């Protein structure tokens, strides 16, 4: 293990640079319109901060202390317990993989089970089916068309352009979880 700084970007480019502590980190941006600004800014920061460890801490701390107006203008952090952070959808029967190949399925049945809803999805050929348990009310009627979009971390179920559920695979399950830690004060 070597102390240093990594920067990671998603999708379009692999934007990872590594530098030992105290040295510079400059990356390109995934957004070309930000590239020049970002590089100039990185260079400026490199000269101002004596150790790479300081970077993220110092930037914000300085601005907050010096400019309360800026602080109040910025949005506070949000505990996103909802949305997909709580994605608890699981396949309880059949396979989504076959449906994902076809890309669409039809809701064959909807059953409320306690605080969850179990949807049976059927492919156009009737040969492929999958039962998916969704936390809460899926709000889908029998006969609704569902798009099944495979991503590297699982399957996204969409209907009429809206996300119905995210069903994580093994990789996704390792990435998507959240729980509050009880305060002891």
């Amino acid at each position, binding site marked *: 293990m070597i102390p*240093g700084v990594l920067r990671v970007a998603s999708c379009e480019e692999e934007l990872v640079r590594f530098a030992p502590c105290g040295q510079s980190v400059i990356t390109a941006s995934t957004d070309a319109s930000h590239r020049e600004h970002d590089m100039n800014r990185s260079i400026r920061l490199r000269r101002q901060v004596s150790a790479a460890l300081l970077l993220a801490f*110092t930037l914000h701390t*300085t601005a907050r202390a010096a400019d309360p107006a800026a602080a109040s203008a*910025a949005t506070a952090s949000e505990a996103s317990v909802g949305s997909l952070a709580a994605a608890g959808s699981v396949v309880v029967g059949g396979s989504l993989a076959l449906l994902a190949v076809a890309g669409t399925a039809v809701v064959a049945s909807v059953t409320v089970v306690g605080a969850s809803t179990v949807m049976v999805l059927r492919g156009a050929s009737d040969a492929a089916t999958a039962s998916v348990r969704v936390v809460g009310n899926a709000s889908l009627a029998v006969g609704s068309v569902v798009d099944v979009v495979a*991503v590297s971390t699982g399957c996204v179920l969409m209907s009429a352009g809206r996300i119905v559920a995210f069903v994580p695979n093994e990789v996704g399950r390792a990435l998507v979880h959240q729980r509050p830690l009880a305060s002891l004060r």
Partner: protein
Amino acid sequence: MISSMRRPVIAFVVGAALLIGATEPALAGRPCEPYEPTALSISKGLELGKRSFDRLDASGAEIALIARAGQNLGQYRLRWSHMGFVWRDHPDGRWTVVHELNGCGSATSSLYAEGLGSFFLDDPFRYEAMIVIPDAETQRRLVAMLRGDLPQRMHDAHYSVVAYPFATDYQNSNG
């Protein structure tokens, strides 16, 4: 702009954050506006989480600090809006982020243990992460701190968007 006169103070703040560990200076950074996820935003957020996971694995580190660009703070000449600890051997799963969040629009906060995918799921301004790997001794001390209940004992739910590390009556998700 960071003046040279401010550097000693900054260094102290960072040192306190790393060695005491319960506070992390910098802003938070998830937008409060209602957000409707799309297949693309889910894919990109989780992909960034996966890439960060893989990079952390490859680094050989046991613990690191991870930052995200949840909001556009360019008008303040800031890039990263939030930071937390990411610990390889967290009981909740490999490479779990431990950080403070406040409820949107509220003045109270909680500490959370969160997967790397969840960390990037809420439509960040840029799908980028910064990972800071401390030296081995600092890692050892940070892990010892997270293994115990020091963060929970030091956490104060009184929250302010202003990150002032010397405040005694409130905390911020980054300081």
